[in-house]
């Protein structure tokens, strides 16, 4: 049974389609694994045993009836608890939504179900996706399967940990400032932030509407591509959704896996190095660049001077939008309600509920955003941040005139110990230094494992950045690096992780 949980999604789907194993057996194996290890890992906030088995039975029935199965039919998946699931609790990691059962499916949820993907449950996350460690979850932290005393990254730490702990071969994350890529990097898994507007946000509980983007998490680049193709595509329910065909991502991953990057131009972002970057992270990153060169890519250094303003701009735009997006949690229609004893006004109940229901980081950002949008400060803060956004987009455009992809470390350090940065928001915010520019510009980016830092034996991620609507380049380059490294190590990186 061990193989059932260690197989890739592609292998699992093929085995189910060939009748070598049933979807129910696969689902049960993963539910058993969750039962065995999740007490330690705490990747899941809610395990939907009945829903998962029933979805698996449906796939088996379809196969028995001779119907054609999709490329991911019967493959289990861990869904970040920020996407609505009809009839299944959805909290966004917040006390204020504890017990809320959405009456509707997110478009992404709907597409997964339609593809026959078996949703095992909802994964832990920083409250409202605000954080880089999953410590901001109202329901307790998640452990990094490489070292349970360390953070699995955030905000999608639950999804990344579920992959690394073999609780699921696929997971969904959302990336507002790095929440897919940074957890991928620190858990030795693959995470992709698609081009903004290519995966529907309908049913994604908003943190920062202009930055949020759902995307695939997996243990291999090919699996990420399969999942990415399943969830992408135009959605009329999301006005910011781009009406364009889904790119051939799986084909790009297969092409990349052949290991030939001849003619691919790679740019190393000069600004993503120096103070604050762990030596072992830079070492593995530099080795990756050499691997790219070895595969036939040409490598040049590029400069994106505006990137140094990305973090401050992000911490004005994201909290501003969040302060408005989170206003709806007022105890009137759903979720937590505190102090409604018949004597208090609606305003008081709203205030008491928000006081009790939001954690400190969420409150910090609501206050920051409220301030940044205030009359008299708007131009200086929100307005300036939007200008920085334009400059960053221009930096990318200039770079992509000369190169096909950019590369950098995904995050400056390996997984830090739980609690280490909890009281130091600025240190925490630095974890997203390299990932934020792509959110501000709306282009696509991937984190792919590139080894362990020698000083702590913890995973390091290589970030590959592509222009908007060129996500296929990520898969070609990512799969090539993955194949070369797997070949060098003799096995996938994750096999080096200690047993749980």
């Amino acid at each position, binding site marked *: 049974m061990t193989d059932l949980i260690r197989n890739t999604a592609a292998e699992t789907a093929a085995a189910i389609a060939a009748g070598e194993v049933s979807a129910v057996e696969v689902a049960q194996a993963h539910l058993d694994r969750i039962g065995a290890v999740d007490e330690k890992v705490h990747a899941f906030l809610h395990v939907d045993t009945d829903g998962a088995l029933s979805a698996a039975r449906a796939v088996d029935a379809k196969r028995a009836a001779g119907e054609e199965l999709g490329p991911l039919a019967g493959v289990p998946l861990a869904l970040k608890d920020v*996407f*609505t699931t009809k009839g299944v609790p*959805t909290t*966004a990691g917040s006390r204020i*939504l504890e017990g*809320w059962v*959405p*009456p*509707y499916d*997110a478009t992404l949820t709907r597409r997964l179900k339609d593809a026959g993907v078996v949703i095992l449950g909802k994964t832990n996350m920083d409250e409202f996706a605000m954080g880089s460690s999953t410590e901001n979850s109202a329901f307790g932290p998640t452990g990094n399967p490489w070292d349970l005393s360390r953070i699995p990254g955030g905000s999608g730490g639950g999804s990344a940990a579920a992959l690394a702990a073999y609780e699921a071969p696929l997971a969904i994350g959302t990336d507002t400032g790095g929440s897919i890529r940074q957890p991928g990097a620190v858990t030795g898994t693959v995470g992709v932030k698609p081009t903004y507007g290519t995966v529907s*946000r*309908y*049913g*994604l*509980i*908003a943190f*920062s*509407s*202009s930055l949020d983007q759902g995307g695939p998490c997996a243990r291999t680049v090919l699996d990420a591509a399969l999942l990415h193709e399943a969830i992408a595509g135009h959605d*009329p*329910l*999301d*006005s*910011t959704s781009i009406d364009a065909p889904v790119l051939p991502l799986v084909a790009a991953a297969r092409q990349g896996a052949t290991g030939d990057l001849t003619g691919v131009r790679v740019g190393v972002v000069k600004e993503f190095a120096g103070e604050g970057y762990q030596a072992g992270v830079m070492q593995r990153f530099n080795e990756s660049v050499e691997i790219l060169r070895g595969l036939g890519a040409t490598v040049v250094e590029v400069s994106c001077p505006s990137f140094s303003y990305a973090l401050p701009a992000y911490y004005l735009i994201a909290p*501003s*939008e969040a*302060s*408005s997006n989170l*206003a*709806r*949690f*007022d105890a*009137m*229609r*759903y979720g937590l309600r505190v102090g409604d004893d*018949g004597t208090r006004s*609606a*305003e008081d109940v*709203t205030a008491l509920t928000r006081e009790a229901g939001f954690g400190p980081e969420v409150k910090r950002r609501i206050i920051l955003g*409220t301030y940044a*949008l*205030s*009359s008299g400060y*708007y131009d200086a803060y*929100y307005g300036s941040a939007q200008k920085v956004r334009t400059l960053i987009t221009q930096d990318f455009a200039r770079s992509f005139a000369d190169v096909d992809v950019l590369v950098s470390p995904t995050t400056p350090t390996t997984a830090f110990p739980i609690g280490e940065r909890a009281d130091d928001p600025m240190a925490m915010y630095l974890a997203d230094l390299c990932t934020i520019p792509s959110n501000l510009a709306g282009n696509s980016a991937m984190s792919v494992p590139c080894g362990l830092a020698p000083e702590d034996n913890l995973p390091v991620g290589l970030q590959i950045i592509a222009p908007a609507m060129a996500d296929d380049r990520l898969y070609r380059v990512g799969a090539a690096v993955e194949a070369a490294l797997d070949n060098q190590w003799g096995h996938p990186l994750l096999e080096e992780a200690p047993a749980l």
Partner: protein
Amino acid sequence: MSVIDLVPYDEALAAYDPVMGLEVHVELGTATKMFCGCSTELGAEPNSQVCPTCLGLPGSLPVVNAVGVESAVKIGLALNCEIAEWCRFARKNYFYPDMPKNFQTSQYDEPIAFNGYLDVTLEDGEVFRVQIERAHMEEDTGKSSHIGGATGRIHGASHSLLDYNRAGIPLIEIVTKPIEGAGERAPEVAKAYVAELREVIRALGVSEARMDKGQMRCDVNLSLRPHGREEFGTRSETKNVNSLRSVERAARFEIQRHAAVLNEGGSIVQETRHFHEEDGSTTAGRIKDNAEDYRYFPEPDLVPVAPSREWVAELRAALPEMPRVRRERLQGEWGISDLEMQSVLNAGAIEPILETIAAGAPADQARKWWMGELARHANETGAELGALPITPAQVARVSELVAAGSLNDKLARQVIEAVLAGEGGPDEVVAKRGLAVVSDDSALGAAVDEAIAANPDVAAKIRDGKVAAAGALVGAVMKATRGQADAARVKELILERLA
């Protein structure tokens, strides 16, 4: 209700110059809401026309109603506005339980229509041009009902009920520039503006604009300044004034109240005011100092609206005739005076008259019946002309019967009354009541002979050539036939017999 001694109106105007700003919200008559597919039908079970989007459920997103945008552009064009080539929605952030997201999706510094005007005709025929600042799109809030208090307001209530059926219904907010120079006619201008705007909205077919149903709501902002001063005084904002008459009364009351405060050396508090229908007064609402901050920012969940110039040109070309232009045209066609036209307007008779003309009646006849017999009846019963139980086609038929000589004026009035009383259509009434004019000689002969016999003196005069005296005998015959005789034929018969 007011505790202040108002300054007499003329006195207030002698000292001060009023400046007004009018903000009108129009609920569009689209089939679905502004940002989701829920029905906009009025009167449904509370919270039955809601979905994740208009309830503001976590994860939900808005999608713009294309018909809403089209209606906004039409309104902008009808108000002689420029139409933005590119504009965005903005979030207006504030907390209120009946607002599901605790922000209203509206427009801020990029309205879809701006810089227009609307010419309004005052009662004496003078035309006043009201400058339009902007018209923008937004969504309505839900509705709160406060239970347990005496007044229905939140004060004193034990609990409140929320109905989100209205949440997300498309609104167009139309804001005037400061209306200056109206002087003592400011209240009249306010009323005429809202009335004209209502006609425009209805002519465009984008809303029924029924003020009594809340489909059109007006805020009256007013300030006074001493004559000769440029700078505006502090304004009050009287909210939700929901009839034409109330708009006029609210403006008038505020002029008198402001003058009273200013005369006593006081200063006007910048606040919202509630209008009271019962006595036409206003009372203080919420203080609106400049600390109020809606933290507007562009709505990131929606893409910009960019009406193409071609599309705007198409909409412009397809605009219906504007009410004022139409009124002037009809007045010309009908050949009536300003005053007569004004009474047609006041009576709400334009549509019935036009429909009656369309049904075949001559214009003067159509107008005569609707402005005469029918207007009187409507007045007596307190009904709208359009709501009377008689159709324009029936009025046209009566007019036709008169023209054909089958009915005379007196009989026609009886037919109309019978139709209104529900006795059936004109032909049915004529048949049932036997009201047709009698012109048959054999039927009239006896009555003529009787009249001659009963009035020998008159008969003698006629024999002597005093033909004019025949009128008295005609009258006698009409009386005897209960008005049904064909008076012209009766006269001929009398003259034949006495030749």
